[in-house]
């Protein structure tokens, strides 16, 4: 958060660019990507999978920008990153085991989405 020093490829490019620090550029990137995210749903011709890809891709970039620079996981001791990532294991299990294991799920749910029983991959 603000007062830390980080050194990496991204920092070397952006930190000090046009006299602005990494936090300013992170802010600009977040704003631009949000604009991109909102704009994606305005183009009616874009297929569902493309919209999905855009939303997930933008989400990953924004999530990284906020956690790595604003929350300063990049630059802080690794223990904080590990602490932040610890629940991700459970989150993934929850999304996989609960979110995608719906017995009444959509048609053609792949078997890897249905842990414990392939019977869950039912057709509507």
């Amino acid at each position, binding site marked *: *958060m*603000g*007062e830390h020093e980080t050194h990496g490829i991204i920092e070397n490019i952006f930190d000090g660019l046009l006299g602005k620090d990494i*936090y*300013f550029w992170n*802010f600009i990137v*977040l*704003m631009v990507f*949000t604009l991109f*995210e*909102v704009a*994606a*749903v*305005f183009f*009616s011709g874009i297929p*569902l*999978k493309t*919209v*999905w890809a855009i*939303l997930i891709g*933008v*989400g990953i970039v*924004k*999530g990284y920008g*906020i*956690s790595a620079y*604003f*929350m300063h996981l990049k630059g802080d*001791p690794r*223990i*904080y990153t*590990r*602490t*932040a990532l*610890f*629940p*991700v294991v*459970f*989150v993934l299990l*929850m*999304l996989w085991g*609960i*979110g*995608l*294991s*719906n017995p*009444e*799920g*959509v*048609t*053609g*749910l792949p078997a890897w989405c249905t842990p414990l029983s392939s019977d869950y991959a039912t057709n*509507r």
Partner: protein
Amino acid sequence: MSSSEAHVDNSIWMRAVLMGSTFLIIGILAFATMGVGMANIRHHDYEEAVHHYEDAKHDYEEAKANNASTEEIAQLKEEKDEAHHHEIDAHLSYLTWRTAGITILLMCITYASFIGLGGFVNSIQPDEDHSHASSSYGGDDHEHHGSGSPIIFALGIMLFLMGFPEFQATLSDMLSGNETELGGIGLSMLGLFVIVLGVSNWWREDLPFIGNGEQIATSAPFEGQHIRKAGLWVFIMSEIMVFATFFSSYLRMRTEWCTGWQVEAGNCEQVDMLTASDFLRPGGAELGGFGGQGDFMTLLPGAVNTFALIISSYTIVLALKTAKNANWEAPEGFMGKLMPTKKAAVRNYLIATLLLGSMFIVLKLIEWSHLVAEGFTIGTQAGSIFYISTGAHGLHVFIGLLVMLYLVFKADTVEFNEDNAQGIEYFGLYWHFVDLAWVVIFPAFYLY
């Protein structure tokens, strides 16, 4: 008084009461202008639009009954539909002003109570009681900056929630004009009283903190780290789990529904569920003429809120950066007038964050009022997960705003500097997490 703490006079605590009064005045003014003045004008327009629609509908029905020409019926139908759209627009416009006025008033009352009561409780103590010798941790210069107040605070929350069902029922009866027994709100009121005491004591311990005595962890895995920071990260870890439960529930329910997206993808044939995004995003699905199909204006509050949270994340980074900068110099031009001193700069960045967060809550409730008016209520399956998830996020924002109020107060009185800026840093971590949660919620519930 010891060298490890600043002395906080009663006059400083009284400034919190003044701040609370200012919020009350702002709230009442906003309610009078928006919630009453503008809302009444819009309500008048709405009533006119309703009459116009009723007339247009009557003309259309009559033309059909009298076997009028096809062209005439088509024209009257077009006029009726136009009048209907106008009626809906007028209703939503009225709701916008009314909700904004009421929300700002309620938020300002909460802000005033929170900051005013805390300041008042501390200001009624004799001046000498604010000195270091009276603190709970003895009188040496090596005391820690720990506090027992969170336990008092948690006890207050527990009492409040234990009494909440009766509290809520009693308040509903009171608002409905039914006979009520005031004893029903006793436990919750006791809880609120304990919360105020806990918060006030917490402030009394933290406000004089000038950076000495930060507790350091002495064992693995956080050895050498500030205990408060490690605790904050563990708290964030638990918060990730909370939001993951909402998200996995949503995912499970969502895979079951035949939404507009699923029809477009060819996975099912007919839309059987309207999601929030159908009402909000342009080109959302429709279900038998009932709701759906948002446009630019319906998505606007959520989109503006997304930008507001990102900007507020940056303003809090700027507040910390300024507080930590020992060689800070006032900027030139307009910004220099806004931030002539370091103290003013930190305070104003925090105020900007507070305003952006407050705007988030106001826009969210305006958006909710529109959705409810269009029939997307918490009683529907899609509505329940939407309102619970976005409501839980909104609650996190609101709690953050209450903490931010205190930070603004501290920035305006004791002042943040390179030694005691941890308060902003740790609060910033929470605030960024709230932003991070929105990064997931916004596309999942508003765009997809």
